[in-house]
Structure formats: structure tokens, C-alpha cells
């Protein structure tokens, strides 16, 4: 068996080159690229409109102010946008498995996941990050927080952690395609649904949803938990301090799960064919 670290660095180098090639050809079509960016910016404002509209009738939701909720939305959604740009091409797996195109991936000397990330990389998806980034920067001034390096670090950790959880979620939902034919809409319910839910304080939800956000898909631990500490926001669920600080680390087991499910899916594909 080849040395795993060697394989990883090989894959990384390949992905880098593939992405560079894809971006170069993407940027050749400037107009189409810009239009798409703009369209994505427009579409993502809907979430902000919803939050602002709702807050025009109340001062707080679950004790959280408008600025605090917008900040939470921004942290989680910037993370989601990062995951979307880097990983969402893995969603093509469903179509490729169905058409047998995935054979092509099996026949090349690189990890299958790395290939899926590189082959159809689209830089223009970065348009999704513009609106939440703007909201993040603007709201940062209005949440009445003294921005110490520690706090900024925690926010960055929250963003990165959210991105990794969503990336893992993209991979897991795409892996399902190895067993069940085309489940794109269901996958969307999980990925986009989790993002929407993560934009609001978790204690607003109860029962299944709350459990889901804290356990199976711990997006709440990525952003909601640390932001309680950073923003000094209400903590009705009583999340302990250590959880607020270490919450962003929740991506570790989730990434491992994603890798496991993907490999399992690959093994299934190779045993049953297309």
C-alpha cells in the first residue's frame, strides 16, 4: 500500500494544478463570470432581507439582537460559501455515478475525492461569499465587541470550522449517490437547510432540529457556541464555557466521518459496477 502522506501530497499538487487550469479558462469569459457573480450576490441577499424584515417587528429573537443574529448568519454563511467554492463540485458524483462517468475517475492515478474536487472546480461560486462577508464586516462594528486578537481568532476559527463541517456535509450527501440514485434535492435539504438553520441561534429550534444541529451535524457548535462567548450573547441552553471555546473543533470527527463514508461508497461502486 502506498504511503498515505505521499498520496495526499500528490493529490494536493494535482488538485492545485487542476484548479489553476480551470480558473484560467473560467476567467477567459469575463462577462459571463461577472454576471454569475452578481447573480449569486443577489440571490444570497434574500437571507439578509428575511432577517432584517423579521427584526423590523421585534428587537430580539431568543434574546439575541438583530446585529448578533446577522453576525451569526454571516459567520456561518461565509463558512458555507467557502465550502461551496472548494468542495461543491463533488455533488457531480451523483450524476457521474448514474451515467457511468465515474469510471473515468477510477481509472486515473489519484484519489477519487481529490479528482472530483479538481475536475469541475468553479471559481465563480465565490459570489456566494460576497454578501455574507459584507454583512460580517459591517455588523462587526455594531455588535459592541472589543475586538481583541483572541476574539478575532475565535471568529476565524468559527468560520473555518463551519466551512469544514459544510464541506464534510457536501461529501457525505454526495457519497449517498453510490448507493441510492440521484438524491440531489435531498442533499440540498441537508446542506442548504443546515446553513439556514445555522444562521439563527440554535435555542430557537427545539426537538429534532435542535438535536440535529448540536449532534449529528454540529454546525451549532461551530458558530453558535463560540459566538455566545465572543458576542456575550444569551445562552439559554447553558452551553458550558469549554464547549464555547472548543466547539469549533467539532469538525474533526465529522471530517473523519466524511472520509469514511466516501471510501465506503467507492468500495461499493467497485463491487457493484455502474
Amino acid at each position, binding site marked *: 500500500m502506498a504511503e498515505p502522506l505521499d498520496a495526499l501530497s500528490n493529490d494536493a499538487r494535482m488538485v492545485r494544478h487542476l484548479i489553476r487550469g480551470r480558473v484560467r479558462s473560467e476567467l477567459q469569459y469575463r462577462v*459571463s463570470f461577472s*454576471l*454569475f457573480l*452578481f*447573480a*449569486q450576490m*443577489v*440571490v444570497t*441577499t*434574500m437571507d439578509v*432581507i*428575511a432577517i432584517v*424584515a*423579521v427584526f*423590523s*417587528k*421585534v*428587537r*430580539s*429573537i*431568543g*434574546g439575541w439582537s438583530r446585529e448578533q443574529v446577522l453576525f451569526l448568519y454571516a459567520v456561518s454563511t461565509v463558512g458555507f460559501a467557502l465550502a461551496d467554492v472548494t468542495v461543491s463540485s463533488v455533488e457531480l458524483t451523483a450524476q457521474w455515478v448514474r451515467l457511468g462517468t465515474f469510471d473515468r475517475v477510477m481509472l486515473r492515478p489519484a484519489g477519487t475525492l481529490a479528482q472530483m474536487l479538481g475536475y469541475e472546480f468553479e471559481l465563480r461560486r465565490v459570489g456566494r461569499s460576497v454578501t455574507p462577508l459584507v454583512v460580517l464586516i459591517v455588523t462587526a462594528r455594531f455588535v459592541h465587541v472589543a475586538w481583541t486578537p483572541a476574539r478575532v481568532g475565535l471568529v476565524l476559527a468559527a468560520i473555518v470550522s463551519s466551512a469544514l463541517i459544510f464541506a464534510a456535509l457536501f461529501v457525505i450527501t454526495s457519497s449517498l449517490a453510490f448507493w441510492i*440514485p*440521484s*438524491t*440531489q*434535492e*435531498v442533499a*440540498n*435539504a441537508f446542506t442548504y*437547510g443546515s446553513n*439556514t*438553520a445555522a444562521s*439563527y441561534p440554535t435555542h*430557537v*429550534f*427545539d*426537538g*429534532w*432540529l435542535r438535536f440535529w444541529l448540536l449532534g449529528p451535524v454540529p454546525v451549532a457548535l461551530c458558530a453558535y457556541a463560540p459566538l455566545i462567548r465572543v458576542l456575550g450573547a444569551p445562552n439559554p441552553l447553558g452551553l458550558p464555557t469549554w464547549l464555547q471555546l472548543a466547539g469549533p473543533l467539532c469538525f474533526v470527527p465529522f471530517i473523519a466521518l466524511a472520509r469514511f463514508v466516501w471510501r465506503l461508497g467507492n468500495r461499493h461502486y467497485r463491487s457493484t459496477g455502474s
Partner: protein
Amino acid sequence: MWTRLRPYAAAARSSFRRQSTYRGATVAGVFTNTVFGFILASVLRAVYVSRGSAVGNLDVTSAVTFTFVAQGLLSVMGAFGEREVAERVRTGDIATDLYRPVSFSAWWGSIMLGRASFSFLARGIPPFVVGALVFHLRLPDRPLTWLTFVVAVLLGALVASRYWLLVNLCAFWLLDVRGLINLAVVVEMTGSGFLVPLQFITGTLGHLLRVGPFATMAQQPIEVFLQLRSGPAAWMPQLVWLVALEAAVQVVLAGATRRVVVQGG
């Protein structure tokens, strides 16, 4: 007279049947709508807890009910974007549509209506039922309301089909109509009350939206369902906008047909 309607009825029927074959997609869609219904209803409930009073004529039960009915109507009103006509313009297939001996506008209206009917039954009802099991939803207590609601949905679907036809017809003038369709989705979602009930949108904007064409697609039928709207107010605005948008479609269509002739098909 009925014989003249036959091609449209056939178009609607085949469109209905075609939608029904996408069983996997329908189930997945129901799942998505239910999940988002839960998320949005929870948020609204928290809002009401914080507010302690109704928002306009919408109390918490009405607001939660609103969410689930809205989720059911999303695909009925084509809120995710209709692209079929624009695609046909791009490939040139639209020429055959324009030269058919039937009204282009009525033809596509029938197709969209067939799709909408299926969506209403298959994707509209289940999320509401699931929502009713978990949340406290308000059902109409007057039998007539059910009928008026269905009529309102029908009229709203017709208005929505005119809207999407207008947007798609822009493909005759724009090279890439995808961006426009994205914009159209945002405008419809926001203006029709799909994003948040229009009671939540304040000021001049809220006022404009409430009397605009988009409100006829979701806000008004849902208010009928909640028995907040009855009598002429239940169908008059929709009829007015239907006539207005149909007129716009005819004007644009004339321009488009001329363009096709000029370009040689």
C-alpha cells in the same frame, strides 16, 4: 367552443402526467419543503415569543400556518425559476411554438398549469400534513374557504405563469438570461411573501408589495386560507394583475415574433 380548448387541456394533462413520473424528485422536494417549513416556522415562533403580540393581522398560529402553506405553494408558483421557454429560445425550438395554430401564451400557460396542479397535490399537501402533526396549525372553519382558496391558488398560478413567461421571453433580447432568472426568483420570493409574510415588511416597500402582482401568488391565497381575506378581495386583485400581465405578455410576444421573423427563425 370546448373543442377550441381541447389542445390546451391536452397540454395541461400531459404536463401533469410528465411531472408525476419524476417520483424521486417529488419525494425529495416534499422532504426539502418540510425541512425548510420546520426551520422557518421555528424562527417565526421565536419571533412571536419575543414580540408577545400579533404582527398586523397575523398571530403566531397564523404565521406558522402561513409558513407551511407557503412551502407547499413554492413549486406551484414556479418560485424556483421556470427556464423551459428560455431554453427553447436558446436552442431555436421556440420557432415551432410560435408558428403553431394555438395561442402561444395559452399553450405555455396550460403547460405550467398542469405542472402546478401536480405540484399542488403532490408537493403542497404532504409538508402541510407533517407540519400539522408537529405544530399547531390553523385550518379554515368555513367550508367555503376551501373552495375560495383553491380558486385563489389557481388564479395565483396563472399570474405566476404570466410572470415567468415575461421573464423567459426576455431571452429573445438577452444573450444570457440566467442572471435575469435568478433576479426574477429573488423578486418573486421576496414580493410574494414566500420569504417572510408581507406583514413583516414595513413602510412604502411593504405597501407596494402588498398591492403588487407577486402578492397574488402566495400572500393573498394564504390569507384566504387563514380567513383573513374574503369576498372580492380574495380574487379581484389577482384578476386585475392577470389581465395586466397577460396584456404585457401579448405585447412582448408580438415583439418577439417580429424578431424571429427578422432573424429568419
